[in-house]
Structures are given as C-alpha cells and as structure tokens.
C-alpha cells in the first residue's frame, strides 16, 4: 500500500489563506457543474427552437393542425404524429394502469411473505430492461400472434357498414396503433407497478392495521384507506409513466407501422413524434424536412414538459405532507 510513501511526503501545509482559496475554488467548481446542467436544459430548448424555426415560420400554427406530411411536395403537418403520440400513450396508460395497480395491491396486501421480495425484485429489475428489447419482442413475437388471434378474428367479426368495421380497418400484419399501445403498456407496466408499490409501502402500518381492525375487507382497506392516503403521489407516478410513454422511441418504432396518415382505426399504421424523428432524421431530404423534424421534437418537449410539471407538482405536495 501507499502508506509508506505518504509518511515520507512533506507534511501538508494548510494555511488558513490557502484553505480559504481552495474552498472558494471548490465552491466555484460545484457551482459551474450545477450551472452546466441548467445550461444543458436551456440549450436543449433553445436549440430545438432555433432548429425548428424555419418550419415554424413557414407553416405557422398550421404545423400542428395539418395532416399532410409529404417530403416530396415539402408540406409538413404534424397532426398525424401528434395524435398518434397522444393516442398510443393514452391507450397504453389505460391498459397499464389497472394492471400496475393490481400488481402493487397484490404485492402490498395479498402476497404471501416468502414471495413478496422475489416478485418485487423481479418487477424492479424488469423496469430497467432497455426499451429496444420490448420493441424487438413486439416485432418478432407479439406482432404475428396479434395478427392471428386478435386482428383477423376481429376484422372478420366486425359487421360491415358499422363503426366496428371502420375501427378495425387496416392490414392484419400485427403492426399498427393498437399493437404499439399494447407494447408501450407492457413497457411502462413494471415501472408504474414498482413506483405504486413503493408509495403504498409508505403508508404507516398503524393506519392499515386500524382499518383491518375495524373489520374492513382487503378491498376496502386498499380503496378507502391506503390508496386515498397516497392519492397525490399515485397520480404523480401515473404521470411519470405517461411521460415515459410519450417520449418512448424504440418500443414504438418497431411496431407502429410508420405511416404519417391521421390514425382512424385501431389497426391502422400510424406514427408517433419520436418514431418519426428516429426514422427520418438521418435521411432527411432537405433543410425544411430537417427543420420540420426538429420542430416536431419541440412539440414533444412541450407535451412531456407539461405532463412532468404536473407530476412534479403533485409529487411535490405528497413529499410536503409526509
């Protein structure tokens, strides 16, 4: 070890003046690092704005309401990808939330003690699996099964001329809006379940026990006592899950079908903002195309920022109360 060399080194001369100087330097260094983070986020926003400006200037507000996205005629309207993003994330949340809540309730109230840790750990580990793995599973395994067992039977069963027929219109190859939503739901499920479980664990045992002591059933304890206790935090956790779904690229790009049309049916091909950027950015044909893609990124930033700010507001309050 280096003990010997230390004892031979000259004794450190820490004078008060030198210490003060080093202290100031160190504080300055820490301050610069914090400022660098601030600069990174402001820079990100500014860069998106400047990069997207040519498209914003050219198309104005119509950028987010126009449905046509055509690199050949140089007309870019983002309504398709924007609606695709909102629909897939919304559907994913609708599907994942009840399941995630069920898993969290199971882990906190019903699970036999020996299984609680292994299942909890498994859920946490799965929350860390890279999204590209979910995307590949969706493309290679899920899509063929989805086409065979869901799409074709439903399309065959839909009575012609009704809304069911138009809702199930599309190519039965396993991709499309609904398939992408399901993969997104599976992807955000472990994250939401783990966060909800952590929240429910913060309920003091005395609160839960007194509810049971009064004769409540498990469902009453959960729905009327522990869940209301962490209500704000739970909404925040849901918002964070939604934020993940909105910005997710890889899990979606593989399976959404990548068409810029306005999605009108559950099985139709569509696109999300992130999948459009991922697919076209390196192959952008013109400056306006590039600007339109960056402006699309700006729209995504605004949407996720709104969701995250809301989540933070709600989670923040939870923190204050606890």
């Amino acid at each position: 070890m280096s003990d010997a060399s230390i004892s031979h080194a000259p004794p450190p001369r820490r004078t008060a003046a030198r210490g003060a100087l080093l202290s100031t330097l160190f504080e300055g260094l820490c301050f610069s690092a914090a400022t660098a983070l601030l600069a990174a986020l402001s820079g990100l926003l500014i860069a998106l704005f400047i990069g997207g400006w040519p498209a914003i200037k050219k198309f104005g507000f119509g950028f987010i309401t126009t449905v046509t996205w055509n690199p050949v005629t140089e007309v870019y309207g983002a309504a398709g990808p924007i609606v695709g993003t909102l629909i897939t994330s919304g559907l994913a949340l609708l599907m994942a939330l009840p399941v995630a809540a069920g898993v969290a309730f199971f882990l906190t109230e019903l699970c036999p003690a020996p299984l609680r840790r292994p299942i909890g750990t498994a859920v946490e580990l799965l929350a860390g699996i890279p999204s590209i793995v979910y995307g590949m599973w969706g493309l290679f395994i899920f899509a063929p099964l989805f086409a065979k067992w869901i799409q074709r039977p439903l399309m065959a069963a839909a009575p012609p001329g009704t809304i069911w027929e138009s809702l199930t219109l599309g190519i039965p190859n396993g991709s499309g809006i609904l398939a992408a939503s399901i993969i997104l739901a599976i992807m955000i499920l472990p994250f939401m379940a783990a966060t909800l479980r952590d929240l429910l664990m913060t309920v003091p045992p005395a609160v839960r026990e007194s509810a049971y002591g009064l004769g409540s059933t498990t469902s009453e304890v959960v729905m009327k006592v522990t869940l209301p206790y962490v209500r704000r935090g739970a909404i925040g956790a849901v918002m964070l899950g939604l934020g993940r779904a909105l910005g997710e690229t890889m899990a979606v790009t593989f399976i959404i079908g990548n068409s810029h049309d306005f999605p009108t049916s559950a099985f139709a091909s569509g696109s999300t903002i992130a999948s459009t950027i991922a697919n076209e950015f390196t192959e952008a044909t013109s400056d306006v195309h590039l600007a339109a893609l960056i402006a699309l990124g700006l729209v995504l930033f605004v949407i996720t920022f709104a969701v995250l700010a809301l989540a933070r507001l709600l989670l923040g309050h939870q923190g204050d109360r606890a």
Partner: protein
Amino acid sequence: MSAASSTLMLRRRVTNAVFTGFCVVVTGLALIALAAILWTLVSKGAGGFNLAVFTEATPAPHSRGGLANAIIGSVMMCTMGMTLAVVIGVLAGTWLAEYGQNSRYGSVVRFLNDVLLSAPSILVGLFVYEMLVAPFHTFSAFAGAVALALLAAPVITRTTEDVLALQPSLLRESGVGLGAPLALVIREILWRSARGGILTGALLAFARITGETAPLLFTALNNQFFELNPTKPMANLPVVIFQYALSPYDDWQRLAWVGALLIAITVLTVTIIARFVTREQNRS
C-alpha cells in the same frame, strides 16, 4: 343478524373476492408477459453466442461476423459518457446539497435537473446533433458520449444530492469545528461517508445509458468497421441492434438478438450490484 346486514355482508364479501381475484390474475398475467419477453430474449440470444461475436466485426449480410466493433464502441462511449457525467453529476449534486440548498437558484437548478432527468432521450440526441454533429459535418463517437452523459448526469446529480442531504449535520459541524475549510470537509468527510450512495447512483445511471438507442441514432450513428477514433462515427450495440433487427436478413436478426441479450445481461448485472451496494450500505 337481520336480512339487510347479511346482504350487505355478502356484497362486501363478493366485492372483496372480485377485487382479490383481479389483483391475483393481473399479477399472474403481468409476470407471464414479462417472463415471456425474458424467455424470448434468452432463447433467441443464447443460441447465437460464440467466440466470433466477441472477436469479429459486424458482417455484411450472409457472411460471418460478430459484434466486436459494436461492443468496443459501446464500452468506449459509455466510459467517456460516464466519466463526464460522474464529474458533473457529483459536483452539481454537491452544490445543490451543500451550497445551493433552498436558494432560489438552487430550486431552479433542481427543477430543471428533474426535467432533464425525464426528458425524452431522443430530444437529447437532437440537441447534441445540433451542437456537436451539424457544425462539424460529421457524426462522432464523442457526440454520442456527450448525449449519454446528458442522460446520466441528472441521475447522478439527484442521487448525490439525496445522499449528501441524508448525512447528519453533526459530521459537517465537527469537521468545521476542527478548523477545516468546508471544501475539505465535503471532500474528506461527506463524500467518504456518502460513497456507497453515490456509487449506487452512478451504477443506476450506467444501467440507464447502456441500452439507450434513440440519442445515438443521430450522434454516433454506426460504423461497419473497427473504429477507435472518437471523432469518427462509431459502431455501438444499440444502433446495430436497431438496424439489424429491422433488416430482412436472418443472420443479422440473429446477431440483433445476441446484442439485445448482451445489453440486458449488462443492465441486470449492474442493477443487481447497485442493489447489493445499497444493502451493504444500509447494514453498516
């Protein structure tokens, strides 16, 4: 017991049975779905494992090859990215916990750090493209590393601040009371006692960036050949997986699964180490 109260009792029992049943069933379904994904990953990925994966560069379609250049590229970019992120993250976290605290500027930085933490990774890629790729007219591994650093730094900042805030103020006071300047107290006492927590944060950040694909698409791009120069486009596992998985060639798709399994194993190992570190920390 009156008839009314027994119907009420029955209704409560039925509600509870339905609720409990729902929880058990969805947990089962969720675990089956997630197990199916892991099973696919292992069965499709493990079959393609051989020495060539680690020794040969990415092949042209229908020829022999491996992922060696992508593995080296990923390791290089993650190392560069993590170095940057640890320096910035630890210092910024220290500033927030020890200097900034409840100041106005501190709250702003804390809020923006949280936003950056959950900003879509593809937007970070766009930002770095505009800063480091477009002006130099070339994709580069360095740009990829910066993009990864921007994703890892907020995680490290957050955990560093949290662990430092947990350290008892007695530690600070005794250090300062001995006449040491605050900077020395932070470096020699606080960092030392918060070491485990900071390490956990760094490991979790590392787990987060190893699988990140979207930001590398427009920064490091890809490279079919061995490339060790960080100013050139460099192969990396996530982008190779993305391209190969979407290709029509069987052998490319097989390599994509091998790469996905490699990444998943790395992420799981790192996460488990992080949990282990946390547990050791809590015990001592």
